[in-house]
């Protein structure tokens, strides 16, 4: 599904050149669950943003679903992103002025769903993430774990084939973190491809493969042995 070859990203700020990613090679197959780990500042978020079509890269090849991303226009990227990719963030990034169900519903607006279909789908997702009883709450009335559930709901509402999660449990305690991880791995079981950035090896153990990055370079890839559980 995703193929990166010799991918390089260079930031230019205040005259200083930062090689955030340097000749990265990475392949993620459909249905896989990959964790990305590494020290702070090594380029994990940068990598995720590029995969999520939010950011550009300087050199190399990026193939998404057999399409060369460099051939896509902004408009096509937007379309691809809203149809195929869901995002989950460390700090939830819910919109303060919208209720739980409105936050979840939002991507459908931009996909142009009819009101009736939207409502139906929101109910399903609310059920899936277990937030049905809080549907009319505002983000500030929810705990961190609950907010992250809503964010997951929002990520999956459009039935994306790829979910990108950047430290989804980073702001949560271990109980809430586990709930989120269970939820994500259930999604993976149902066939969604998952790429997650994490600092926690416990969370990484939910995935099938761990990619380690240091200084913008992939240093190791290893399979997770589920037998350990």
């Amino acid at each position, binding site marked *: 599904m995703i193929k990166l070859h010799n991918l390089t990203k260079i930031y230019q700020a205040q005259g200083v050149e930062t090689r955030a990613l340097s000749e990265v090679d990475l392949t993620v197959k459909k249905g896989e669950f990959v964790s990305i780990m590494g020290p702070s500042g090594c380029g994990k*978020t940068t990598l995720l*943003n590029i995969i*999520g079509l*939010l*950011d550009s890269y300087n050199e190399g090849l990026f193939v998404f679903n057999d399409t060369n991303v460099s051939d896509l226009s902004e*408009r096509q990227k*937007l379309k691809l*992103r*809203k*149809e195929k990719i869901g*995002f989950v*963030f460390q700090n939830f*990034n819910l*919109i*303060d*002025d*919208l209720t739980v169900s*409105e936050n979840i519903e*939002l*991507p459908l*607006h*931009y*996909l142009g769903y009819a*009101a009736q279909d939207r409502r139906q789908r929101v109910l399903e997702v609310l059920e899936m993430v277990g937030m049905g009883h809080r549907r009319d709450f505002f983000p500030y009335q929810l705990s961190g774990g609950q907010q992250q559930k809503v964010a997951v709901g*929002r990520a999956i509402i*459009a039935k994306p084939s790829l979910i990108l999660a*950047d430290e989804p449990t980073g702001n949560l305690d271990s109980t809430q973190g586990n709930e989120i991880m269970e939820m994500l791995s259930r999604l993976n079981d149902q066939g969604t491809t998952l790429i997650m950035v994490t600092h926690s090896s416990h969370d990484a153990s939910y995935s099938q493969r761990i990619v380690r990055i240091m200084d913008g370079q992939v240093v190791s890839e290893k399979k997770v042995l589920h037998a350990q559980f």
Partner: protein
Amino acid sequence: MPSSKFRFALRSLYRQKLYTLLNLGGLAIGLAVAITVSIYLNAEFNFDKHWPNYENIYRVNSSFYLNGTEEEYGGSGSGLASLMKEFYPEIEEATHFFSFENSVYFHSDSVKGYENELLVADANFFKVFNCHFLEGEADSSLTAERSIVISQSFARKYFGSKPALGQTLNTSNFEYQVRGVFEDIPDNTHHNFNAVISEPRVASDTLSLAVSLWQVSHYTFLKVPSALEAQNVEANFDQFFNRYMAGMADAVQAEYRVKLQQISDIHFNTNPGFDAIGGSLIYVYGFAGIGLLVLVLAIINYVNMATARSLRRIREAAMRKVLGASEGDIQLMILVESTILSLLALLLAFALVEIGTKVLPLTNAIDKDLQLNFKRDAYLWWLPLVLSIFVGIISGLYPALSLSKVSPLDAFSNKKGLQRQNNIPRKLLVGFQVAVSVTVVITAFFMYQQMDFIKNRNLGFNPNDVILITAQDTNSVMHLQEIRANIAQSDYVESVAMGASVTGRGAYRGIFEAETEANKGFQRHSLDFLRVSRDYLKTMQIDLLQGRSFLTEDEQDSSFSYAIVNQSLVEFMGWEQPIGKKLNTSFNERGEAMLKAVVVGVAEDFNAHSLHTKVGPLVLLLSKERSRVLHVKVDPNNIYVALDDLERRWTSMVPNAPFQFSFLSRDLLELYTEEMRQSRLILYLTIIAIFISILGFVGLASFTTGLRTREIGIRRLLGAGRLQMVNIVFKELLWVMLIGVLIAVPLAIHITQLWLANFAFHTEIKAPIIVGTAVITLLIGYGIVALHSLAIAKNNSVDSWRDA
């Protein structure tokens, strides 16, 4: 989708209540002012345009040429209307009327009261002025003597819901038959009227008709088919003049011309002599300007605040983009929100106008009918609607454009607002607001000072403790001499003077032959004069400079009388020896003076006219003719006892006439109603401008401090004093205010000078006031900044630097 957009927008507004309230309130006030001013302007610019055929109605103005000078009057002679109609076939209708200067006492069976704005007109009046008749026949309503035609509200007052037609209305002298009821005419009518009384029929011989043409006593109105005929009438007036007026022209040594003025042109172009009070284009444009300014200020604020607020939504916009929103989606969202907000402001504005005009006595305070009448004035809803949609769009435009360009990556960055670069235009706008407010405050201050100056100015006579009694009906006029004698006996009365007009409110103007110093015979001059009785100088406390006052034995009925002239007249004539000089006036059709007078004294100059005009040459003529007014100087310690006594004495003399009095000092203030209205209006506008500017400044201060929240937090943590922090922010805003003040001061001085130029006597512009206003402005600015910075320092000293 639209309904959910609407819902989201409202919710987002609700969550930021204070912000919404300030923003909405500011714009609503601006819109309300603009709406109110537009109602005012609409009325001003449509004076007399409510007449169905106003384009064909013309007033005949008079121009007299004497000694090479032209004198213009809005009025004309009483014979003119009928003679012109006869002479010019193109004139369709002609009418004349005059208006009562005073209120008249009316009573029906059950109701009594005083009425203003009464006309006495010939039978053709309603043929020219097409009132809508609710009862009676327009054409025949004024044919019979002692007929009265009244307005609907007049009828309601005296007859309730019963039909008024055929009922009788009494004044103290006469009984009138109601011959018609017309729908109330709008306030923006130059010659406004509540009732029209039919003119008494007098048999007029040709000679008196000829004389009447030379005396301005009536307003003459013509109805012609088009402007062309009006021009013809004016152009061919020579023929009329030769036929009817040339005979007396030699006797009075004057020329006469008419000028036709379309009725809707009168309001802003009133004539210097004999005319109802008109409007002033300068003021109207002034108010239009101020209204526009307030509106612009409010819009600027609104746009500013909307922009400042939207910049806090960068993360939201970025997040929406991550979730698949296109640029267009974001733009639409922002524009819908800002338009909804501005429409809400419009609703609020209409509510404010209603409150201002119905609940608060705003309409009274500025003496104008300012009703929100959507039916009558359709523009009142669509114009503001278009405007507020426009404001909504421009206020959303910048946020929409900038937010839609945000990179989705900003969802994860720490950017909370845009950086400094945007601050300069905002600062300039706020500088502009400061300039406007300071200008308005200074101008308002001097306007009030001028009003104060007028109230306290030494007029050259003393209006205090002078009670005016005006005889309203022929009976009291006839007995005025005896009434004067009776009143003079009262213990509470110091002295009484009889006269033809109220002192200080103007003088008559007449043609005089004045003896020259060098014995070169007489010179003709058009001079101001007052007809007074013997105790005039004493009652009015006017100083006598030379000669003597009038004596009892001077008061004789004859064609020979005595005069006292003012100092200015002595200078004007160049008299070295004024006492004994001869003055002739009151010329008959053969040019003979009917009244000859000799100067017995010279009085100090005093303000016989309002303070708008300089003191000119003036003759005080000892004359009983046309006497109507008693000036009664009463004991200041017993004013109310004196009033009781005056009423008792009045009633014993003329029991049927109501005792009507007023205080001279109060009456004189009426001369300045227009200016008082203006100063009140400017006061309101000042308050509003200050309010809106403070709003704008609060917006800028919170924006500036907001950008520096983090810095302030950290500095505070490192031990910076409170004052130091305030100063950091204030320094950034100080120059904005200084520039505003620097622009405002010369502007204010200029406007004030223009306004004061209307007064021949006026106060001076004082530097301390200007400096004071500037200092206070800076202090207020400092206070607002201080409140903001301190609040931030207190509340978020830890949070602000941690997760800003």
